[in-house]
């Protein structure tokens, strides 16, 4: 049943998953590193570039609010099931 609370939980989990991807240990090993790819100008419009850019921006923006949201959700679920 997709309710607002379920949607919120699902999106919280997805954002957590995106933020957990480690830059050094994982992304660069898979060739998805954000810095050392040959950032040639012909690369800018490919889908892989867009997705990786999206991942990096999500990580930068939501790192701190996600800590707060996670703590709140954990407390909420502890108290109310």
């Amino acid at each position, binding site marked *: 049943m997709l309710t607002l609370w379920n*949607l919120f939980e699902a999106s919280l989990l997805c954002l957590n998953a995106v933020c957990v991807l480690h830059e050094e240990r994982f992304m660069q090993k898979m060739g998805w590193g954000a810095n050392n790819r040959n950032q040639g100008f012909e690369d800018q419009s490919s889908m892989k570039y867009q997705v990786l850019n999206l991942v990096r921006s999500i990580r930068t923006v939501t790192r701190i609010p996600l800590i707060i949201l996670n703590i709140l959700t954990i407390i909420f679920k502890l108290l109310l099931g």
Partner: protein
Amino acid sequence: MNFNASRNVGQASGPRKAKRVSDVSVMGAPSPVQAFTPPGTFEQGYAQAGPPPPYQQGIQLDPNQDFGSPAPAPAPPGNFGYMPGYPQTMPTPANIGSMIQQPIIQDMAMQYGNQLAAQGREAVSRELGRFVPVSRLRYYFAVDTRYVLRKLILIIFPYTHKEWMVKYDQESPVQPRYDVNAPDLYIPSMGYVTYVLLAGFMLGIQHRFSPEQISIQASSALAYIIFEMVLYLMTLYITNTTTALKTLDLLAFSGYKYTTMIASLLAALLLGSMGYYCSLIYCSLALSFFLVKTLRLQLLAGSQGPEQPAYGGYPSNYGNPNPYTDNWAKPSSSGTKRRVYFLLFVAITQPLLSWWLTYHLVPSAPSISPAR
């Protein structure tokens, strides 16, 4: 509406005449007899000489003011500027009780409250205007009855409509009330509310209803809207598809499926499960047709340039030049193909979602039939 541009003008110009609030408030003018007592009682309560009393900070009551004349209606906002001074220094506590009773204090308190409310309203609208583009929203709700009727008929039966291009009015699309092709948010929002109520009704007929169901249905439908919008926006961003379609347009077009859902639910009420599926299939086809015709112009009109559009013989400058896509770097033919795929994606998910959101509400037998 309550904003007074001259609020701070001339505030330092010493004692000025103060207009009574009760003149211009909607509560009506007070009787002239009572209005003249305050100046007398002030001078009895406090041993200060004559007007102005020190705590009034220069406000001078004019006993010759004409309290009987009705004040002009637009005047109230302007009066906020005439009473700049509030009681800055409170008199001794023993005198507060008698002070509160006097109409002048009540008037000043009410005016103070009004001013606070006006400031609060201003602050709220300013903050809200940062998140939600209110002027853009106003465009989407500028509809009239004729437009709504024609649009609903168009959604159910789009096969005879010839002209699908939205008329532009100096580089901005005309309001929905002047052009039946323009997207609006009125029908989606009304459809959403109607869907929630109809869902509650159908649950009630099957004896599955409880008041929590209304909120569950409402939040579920809202969650689907949000999820769908996020899905479309992510698809557009990841595939790097630049279109002329704005977010609110996309919201409007995805909200048109509520018409489909409501029609199918009504058919389910009258004709049972068979009626539901027939109506769903027909309305889904009609909605897909409508969406393809409308979105084709908005999505593919951006493909200006010398390249061959992949979508079969489409002239590159169809209709009017789209002012939103003039700043492109390189519109490519693969971009057109992506746009076509996105259009098909939208046209297919709409019927699926409308089925998904209604099938659990359908009764298995006709619940309202004449031959009971």
